[in-house]
């Protein structure tokens, strides 16, 4: 079976890849968002702490 044949998914390629693509996007977003938020929070708290001193 060739790559393009596999990619076409027997004519259902659009539906199949849209599903996997959306899953990947949702998984990536939910992973990256809290990591960035925590970094931002720690920076913010450190900044406020310095100002108070």
């Amino acid at each position, binding site marked *: 079976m060739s790559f393009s044949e596999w990619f076409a*998914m027997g*004519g259902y390629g659009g539906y*199949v890849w849209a599903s996997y693509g*959306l899953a990947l996007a949702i998984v990536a977003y939910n992973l990256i968002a*809290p990591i960035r938020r*925590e970094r931002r929070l720690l920076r913010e*708290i450190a900044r406020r*702490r310095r100002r108070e001193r």
Partner: protein
Amino acid sequence: MLKAFHRLGAPRNFYRFAGTTSRWLGWGALLLALPGLYLSLFYSPPDYQQGESVRIMYIHVPAAWMSLFIYMVMAGSAAVMLVWRVKMAAVFASASAPIGAAFTFLALVTGSLWGKPMWGTWWIWDARLTSELILLFLYFGYMALESAIEGRDTAARAAAVLALVGVVNIPIIHYSVEWWNTLHQGPTVTKFDKPSIHWSMLIPLLLMALSFTLYYLAVALRRARCLVLERERKSQWVRELTGESES
């Protein structure tokens, strides 16, 4: 055991525990997803009726399971918070809600993407689809209620009550395909006798479901860390934590 659990109730210990555990769970999820995706996309056979479109199942079904599982975890944490006043249970419930909503959304959209070529329609107002949509609104309602009420503890309690009332929807979703006639196919895995799905499809399905479960726990703990930091920003240990990186 109980003592260790009690110690976890302290925000500082919880924060540290969540960090380490989240990392391990995250790598575990990836480790399961790689063979899971390989089997789903290459190895597993096309369905004799649905052809290659059946591969949507390996995303759709685990996502739908997660939407129910996360809701039960969220409602369970909410109950623990109401009964025993464990603050970290409230934190975990609140960290779970957006992830549950994301998986519910994923289940609905992949269901649509599967329904269009197989049933000839993106959507029907049948029992299974409608009750799953209600689940999405329950997640949204929980999040909205929690952020709308002034005062963190009042907000957490109100949201917890909503989560517990919403539990009634969970068996309705699960049994909807048996109680009502619908286009949606019946269960093939969670039957009490032997599952009527072939192992070549069952194994990738279970791998993906387990991977999603570990992933959920990993990112929920990440989110919980942010919530703990926000709650405890004035406390001594958070100040020390942020001081470390500074010097």
